């Protein structure tokens, strides 16, 4: 959003991404400012996960630049970006299944060297998710889906990110847990972490977000404040299931 005069924390400048010859992201421009909560909406295969992977450097764009805090990081590896404050909670959580919860959390802090800071962050995570503390030595693959979501968020927070990328955090959770999950996301956000969230649950995502984008076959078709998107007629028709009458 051009009226913002701060430097964006994370930025896409005319990004194009291909898988082989297939054009996935088309001239995408995004900007996330410090402390914001933004969400990316879009249908299946519209390129949402690809956007996150490109931001984190797991996929290299064909043209355009990824800018982190004013620095062009397009050709920097993932580890470089993680070290500078980006982390992702991947789609489907993807814990290290045969490792314990504790080992999963420690791996989240893989690049950190400050033992004391890590310990206090872990305490902070236990406060947020008391369940995680109880299950510390359990193999993470045997946790319930809801517990896995908590560990996945905890693991990401262990790197003390400035911006947290979340790929469909409420996928596969019971409705009650979805609610809790969004509350937790707000809590993390309240701690000053910028959040970039990909969600199918557009209604809920927009109700907590500051801004949002809508991606359609790799192109950004809508870019507005969350409040404006919530009442956008086209969006309501296609994503928010207006027939249901919210």
């Amino acid at each position, binding site marked *: 959003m051009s009226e913002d005069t701060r430097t964006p924390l994370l930025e896409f400048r005319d990004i194009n991404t291909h898988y082989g010859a297939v054009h996935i992201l088309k001239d995408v421009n995004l900007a996330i400012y410090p402390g914001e909560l933004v969400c990316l909406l879009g249908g299946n295969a519209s390129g949402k996960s690809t956007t996150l992977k490109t931001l984190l450097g797991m996929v290299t764009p064909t043209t355009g630049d990824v800018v982190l805090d004013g620095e062009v990081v397009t050709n920097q590896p993932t580890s470089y970006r993680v070290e500078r404050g980006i982390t992702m909670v*991947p789609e489907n959580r993807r814990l290290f299944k045969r*490792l314990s919860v504790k080992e999963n959390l420690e791996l989240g802090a*893989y690049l950190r060297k400050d033992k004391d800071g890590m310990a206090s962050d872990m305490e902070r995570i236990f406060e947020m998710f008391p369940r995680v503390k109880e*299950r510390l030595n359990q193999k993470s693959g045997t946790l319930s889906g809801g517990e896995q979501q908590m560990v996945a968020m905890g693991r990401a927070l262990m790197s003390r990110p400035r911006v947290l990328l979340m790929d469909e955090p409420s996928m596969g959770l019971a*409705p*009650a847990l979805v609610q809790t999950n969004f509350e937790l996301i707000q809590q993390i956000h309240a701690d000053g972490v910028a959040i970039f969230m990909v969600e199918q649950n557009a209604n809920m995502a927009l109700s907590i977000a500051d801004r949002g984008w809508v991606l359609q076959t790799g192109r950004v078709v809508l870019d507005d404040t969350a409040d404006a998107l919530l009442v956008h007629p086209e969006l309501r028709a296609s994503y928010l299931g207006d027939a249901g009458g919210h």
Partner: protein
Amino acid sequence: MTAATQPNEYVADEPTILPGKAPLDQDWADVAKWGAIGASTMIFVVLSGMLTGLDSRLVIERVFSLGYLAVVWVPLTLGFLVAREEVLEGMASHAKGANEVVSGGIVGALSGAGLSLLILLMDSFDLRDPLVNWSDKTLGLLQFSEDSFFGIVMWAVIGLLLGAIGAGLHLLTPDMRRLVKIMVVTVLFVSVFETFLTDLFKGFGLVFITDFLYAARGGLTIISTIVLAIVAGLVAFFGKGRVKQAQTRINAGAVEGGGRTKANIAMFVIGGLLLVILPIFTGKITNELLANVGIFLLLALGLNIVVGLAGILDLGYVAFFAAGSYTTAILTSPNSPGWSPELPWWVALIVTIGVAALAGLLIGAPVIRMRGDYLAIVTLGFGEIIRLLFLSDWLSPWFGGAQGITNIPPADFGFFEVKGTDPRSVFYLVLALSAIAIYVSWRLERSRMGRAWMAIREDESVAEAMGINTVNVKLMAFVVGAVLASFAGAVFSAKVGSVFPSSFLILVSIIILVVVIVGGMGNIPGVIVGAVVLIGVLGGPKQPGLLQEFSEYKLLIYGALLIFMMLTKPEGLVPNARRTRELHQDEFLQDAWLRKQVDEDEEASEAELGDGPTAGAPA
């Protein structure tokens, strides 16, 4: 973790025992299935040549040979298996009786009938052409040197009896069953390991014991068998209480956690001391075995890092063993075809480590970007390419082609010379290197690098997302694996005195992999047990093991063992104790919670359970 987490106190409810079933109330399909399995196994064992091949090796003088043992374990085991009843907690079980004996007997008789059928067929048809063991000798042994009718009847009867005995074991009390088991296992153990025990007892000056035990032509005498069984039975009977006590103590220590680490360290120290002292007394045969176990242990520890920790299925691991062996050979032998600096062994070792690390980088770099199956296939190719390069005419000015490199001198440390004709010295060298390798593996497993390896093993892309530089970390696994393999290679050269391309067949890779898998992937004690059991007892690709008689069937047994382990115990012989315990503790906690024994977080948990499934969709 509260006071309720005392797994030892947990006692399942006694199962209800129903009266036994009627003798003929059988699950006939099951009986027929086991009978067919038994019959085909016995026919397979006979036609694979074990009966004839192992006949000269006696278990009990004049009565019973290893050949027959290879056959008759089948009806006994199957009789035991068919009569087994799996009792789940809370379900009723039946009293054991005639019903079980009948099913065991029938299964045994059906199995034995397999051999009766074989006698009939061998008598009537000549299939010697595809089946080498379709011979008169086999037939003679099958008929016990009588006519075919005698043989046919005998096998059905033997099967019947053994099957019934196997099933009858279930009628004994658990204590009795244990006693019988110990007696039989002791007799078999002492008999089968005759060469090893003779060698061992000679070293300790206890020849009179082996003189008493074994007959002049090998095998136990009838008297010694009886004495042995009685002694084993007595020891088992009176020793029982003490074993239980020790076990409780160990388990109690295990729960403490800290005590366990101490116990582990103590065990390592005692084990290490024993290993230093033992070879002084043992003879050549035993020391040779121990030396081979050590060489393969080094290899297996290296592969364990690559496969077990980092999850990279490297099927061409032998390449690094070859690189290590050849480097040491070239650097130390006066006969190296291209260039022979004739360095002392330990200098060569240092260079070898460097070369191996480089080889790890060079082979690793191209394959590391692949994943899963593709990587496995490519490493398989690389393993063969390296061997073919050593074999090639093109490089023979340096590596000697098929002639290899000979005349490799012993490793001379001034005060101590390591050479193949003195297996004890090889063993000490390999022991020292293994100690280093174990320590390094142990430290690495707990390091940041080890964590990263495990993360990559679990999920490579997520590991990358955590900021792990997956390419570098995987390369490091290759390099560490290569260096450990080069230790083995350097010792191998000095021990054997010559290296040939034919020493580095793919089979070596496969066998090392089996050692790692059977022992327990990613688990150091498991790998040690795997190396001792497989290499020590069965033997390496070209190295004989304790069961020299079985050399011919080594690969068969390896294969069978691998399949068996994958089906029944995929976590290996020595599963990761720490994880298992934690899991069980957790299960226990859940059980306790269900029975309302843990009350602190009860309310919280209940609240959560309460609103989960019932709450409607948020709007």
